[in-house]
């Protein structure tokens, strides 16, 4: 195919996509309208199962299977990164020298670290009650740990962050989510069905049946995945060097 013909095919495809998008947008409900048919039904279903945060109810109850897919995407993406960024035979590790940290940076990092870590854990724990949940809290808690790299140095970070343990936690949490799903299949009605546990009292930590458990599993999975991912990137950026002369 010549360059010209390829351009025409591209233009035809682009024009078709644009026409379909415009046609779809013309039928959309107006911005900020009063009618939310899906939203109303989701809120109703969420309140029926005593889950205060409707988004969490959608994520871990009504659409729990979608979340399983998303978790699998994150898990396999991190797995791919770990394989791609491993130390190859023409590379070696060089201990990074202790870095000088400006005192204000050190003070800031060491004050903010516990606050950020606690906020992350709070967001995970209250996923079924207030905005947030396992994913958001997990990312916050995992990145908070890395403030130690800012405030002290790489060696200090490595001491509090045994990567192997986080890899195990990541895999355990992912399989925990699956086990919860299978428990729903065996003890309840369907895979990941939220019919096993009592729904509890509205707006308390233990409300929502399996929602808090699945939420916690996702929190642990995401925190583990982010720590492992950042560890591999940090290894490559700080420690691993190519052999000279190759």
């Amino acid at each position, binding site marked *: 195919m010549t360059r010209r013909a390829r351009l025409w095919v591209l233009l035809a495809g682009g024009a078709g996509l644009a026409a379909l998008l415009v046609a779809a947008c013309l039928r959309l409900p107006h911005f*900020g309208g009063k009618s939310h048919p899906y939203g109303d039904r989701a809120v109703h279903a969420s309140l029926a199962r005593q889950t205060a*945060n409707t*988004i969490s109810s959608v994520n871990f109850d009504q659409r729990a299977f979608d979340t399983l897919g998303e978790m699998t995407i994150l898990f396999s993406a991190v797995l791919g990164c770990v394989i791609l960024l491993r130390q190859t035979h023409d590379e070696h590790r060089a201990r990074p020298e202790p870095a000088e940290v400006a005192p204000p940076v050190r003070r800031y990092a060491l004050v903010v670290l516990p606050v950020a870590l606690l906020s992350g854990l709070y*967001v995970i724990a209250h996923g079924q009650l207030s*905005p*947030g*949940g396992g*994913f*958001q809290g997990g*990312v*916050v808690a995992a*990145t908070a740990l*890395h403030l130690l790299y800012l405030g002290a140095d790489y060696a200090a970070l490595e001491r509090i962050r045994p990567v192997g343990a986080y890899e195990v936690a990541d895999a355990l949490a992912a399989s925990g989510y699956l086990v919860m799903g299978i428990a729903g299949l065996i003890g309840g009605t369907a895979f990941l069905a939220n019919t096993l546990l009592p729904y509890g009292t509205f707006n308390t930590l233990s409300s929502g049946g399996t929602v808090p458990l699945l939420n916690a599993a996702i929190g642990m999975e995401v925190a583990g995945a*982010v720590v492992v*991912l*950042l560890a591999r*990137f*940090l290894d*490559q*950026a*700080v420690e691993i*060097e*190519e052999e*000279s*002369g190759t």
Partner: protein
Amino acid sequence: MADAVIVVALLLVAGCATAAVATRDPMRQALVLSLLGVVLAVLFTVLQAPDAGLSQLAVGSALTPLLLMLTVRKVKRRAQGKERER
């Protein structure tokens, strides 16, 4: 009133996104990207989606710029190593 806030947030997002594209140095670009993450989180919150806002704040303004900066550091270190050999 609420519409005005939404318009301001949208304009901020457009401004930050343009700045992120216009910045050429990857290190600075990562910083602008982090600012864009914060502004997008504000936009999501204004549009009554605090959950999406939190995700955006955690991933878009902390995690992605951090990964970018680590990658840039690795590439720069490799270039320096090659130069030293010559």
